[in-house]
Structures are given as structure tokens and as C-alpha cells.
């Protein structure tokens, strides 16, 4: 490590009970400083109740462009959606 440029991705849970959401990244030499920097940089206005920081190098991403093929297996399975089904007239609460 020749310089200070470890990059950390930051995820914030805005309220107890909700999922953590990606908000951006930052540079920090270690995990404690990454958390403190994340607090100062991304929660100056009570944006969160919990922060995750993850080293950027540990995130594996699918391709954003021309990546349609990757999602092919689920494209033709419309029976996974409730709107696919016909219900008998008059049925309720289903």
C-alpha cells in the first residue's frame, strides 16, 4: 500500500427496519476511520440509523451494459407474477 487510497463503499439504513442502501464511497486507511468518515460525509442531516462500509475491492458486480443475457433466465417466467393468474369472479382477499 503506497498511499492512502483504499476505497470503501458506504451503505446506510435510513430507519430501523429498512434495508441498507448504497449512498456513495470514500477513501480511508482502515475500517474505523472509514466508519467515522462515512458518518461525517453521508449523515450530516440524520440520514441514517446504521452504516455499513465495505471495501470496494470486495464488491463483485455484473455488467451494467449488454448484461441482459445475465437476466434471461427470469425474463420468460411471467407466472412468477400474481397478475398472471385468472381468478373466479367474486373471489376476494386473494
Amino acid at each position, binding site marked *: *500500500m503506497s*498511499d*492512502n*487510497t*483504499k*476505497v470503501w463503499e458506504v451503505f446506510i439504513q435510513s430507519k430501523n427496519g429498512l434495508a441498507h442502501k448504497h449512498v*456513495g*464511497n*470514500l*477513501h480511508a*486507511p*482502515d475500517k474505523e*476511520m472509514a466508519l467515522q468518515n462515512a458518518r*461525517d*460525509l453521508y449523515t*450530516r*442531516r440524520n440520514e441514517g440509523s446504521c452504516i455499513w462500509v465495505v471495501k470496494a475491492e470486495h464488491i463483485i*458486480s455484473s*455488467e*451494467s*451494459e449488454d448484461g441482459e443475457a445475465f437476466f434471461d433466465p427470469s425474463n420468460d417466467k411471467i407466472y412468477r407474477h400474481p397478475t398472471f393468474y385468472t381468478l373466479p369472479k367474486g373471489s376476494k382477499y386473494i
Partner: protein
Amino acid sequence: MNEQKFQEKIDLERKIEPKDWMPEEYRSHLIRQISQHAHSEIIGMQPEGNWISRAPSLRAKMILLAKVQDEAGHGLYLYSACETLGISREELVQQLHDGKAKYSSIFNYPTLSWADMGAVGWLVDGAAIVNQVSLQRTSYGPYSRGMVKICKEESFHQRQGYEIMAEMAKGTPEQKEMAQDALNRFWWPSIMMFGPQDSDSPRTGNAMKWKIKRQFNDELRQKFIDQTVGQVKVIGLEIPDPDLKWNEERGHYDFGKMNWDEFWSVVNGNGPCNIQRLDHHKKAHSEGEWVRKAARSYSNKQEIINA
């Protein structure tokens, strides 16, 4: 082929993301623009930082501190966005120190009185907001998302500045004079923040085609002037432009000639504070070196311990 697909995407208002194919010129244009924007946020802390220790009340001090801290955050969001284009933070800072990357010329003017804190927040942030609101729709995803975040935080910046000006304008005759003086000094540099008139702006072509820029400089400038004139009247000050008047036909204010010779002279290093701003940044950067070193060796040690 790639280029055509790229343009189609742009035309469909789809965002370009870091891993997507893009023309080299698009990439370099963005690096130039985003880094200039980031450096402006960072250097822009200096003229206001100048007054933190001399703020006239605890309330004023807390507000100014919070505002300057926001600007540091804006700089970091923008450096992050710029890094997604394949340039490192160190390179970006180096370009600033070498004078290869610019920052907004407005920060090369000094802040001489407390009223200048009013003028800066109200006019400089005000002009920046008009530009940034427009850039929320820029075609590069990370830049656009950064702008959305920044715009949310900017809204208090302009108001706190206007509050300072309003307060001083209704104070003693001396205070009102300070407010007017601040307005006189910051008005023209503020409206020149939008950049050269489009007729003299060679780079606009591709930037508009690629939707990096969404509106012309002159359009944004006019918007800022139109919305600011009323605010000036409300607090009883006067815009230092004898040619400023409402044009019924255009539905906009007409305004006088901007001094572009002065603008370019400041851009090219001859403003009152160019040297001071850059020297201060270099000094802070080199004085922070031991902290970075210590943090680095602590982190290396932890990795060995945890290995």
C-alpha cells in the same frame, strides 16, 4: 458503431455508467469538468473559512461552520464521481497543484468584511445552485447522482447568505454600506461564474450533444439574474449595473456588458488571491502528510495482526 449506440442511449435520456463504453473525448471532458467542480468546492472553503473565527455570534459561527463542512463533502462526492472515470485522487490533487486543473475563478476574490459571507452564500452559492440544478440531468450517472445530493444540501447555503445580507441591509448606515459594498464587488464575478457567452464558448458543441451540459451558459445566467433582482429589491440594496432593466418583450431583465478581460485575467492567475489559495491548499496538504502516513502504517499493522 459504438459511438452510434452511445449517442442513441444519450438521446433516449439513459444514463452512462462507469463501465459503459464512452468516447475518449466524453471521458476527458467529464474529467476536466468534474474535477474543476470538485476543486471549486474545496478551494471555495477558504474565503469563508477566513471568517469562521470572527463570526459575529455563536449562531453565525455554527451556521458558517456547517456550511463550510458541507462544501468539503461536496468536494469529496465529486472527487468520487471523477475517480469512476479512471483517474486517481492523487492525480486530481496533483493537477490542481500544477495549475493544470482549474477551479471557479470567483474564489480568487478576497472576503473583506462579514457582509461578504452574505454575498458569497447568497450570490455565489445562488449561481452555483442554478448551474447544479441543471446538471442533475447530466448524462453521466455518477455526476448526476452527485448533483442531486449536492442540490439538497445547497438550499440552506443560499438562505443563510441572504439572511446575513438582509440583516446588515437593515442595520446601521455603516452596516448597510458594507452590504452594498459586498454586493458591488460580488455581483459581476457571480454572473460571470456561468462562463463565457455561448457565442464565445468553443467547447459547448459536444457537451450539449452528449448532454453533459443541459442548458447554455447564457440561459442559466439569465435565470439567475431574473430570480435575484427581486431579492435585491426586497432588502433595499442596488445592483451595480446601470443598464439593468426589465424587458417586457423578452420577459427577462436586460443587463450590462460583462468585463471578460478581467474574467480571463483572473482565470489565468492574475486575480487578487490566486497564489494565496493554491499555496494554502499545498501547505495544508503537505502538513497533513504525517497524519496520512501514521494512519497508513497503523492500517498496515492491523492487516498483519489480523492476517
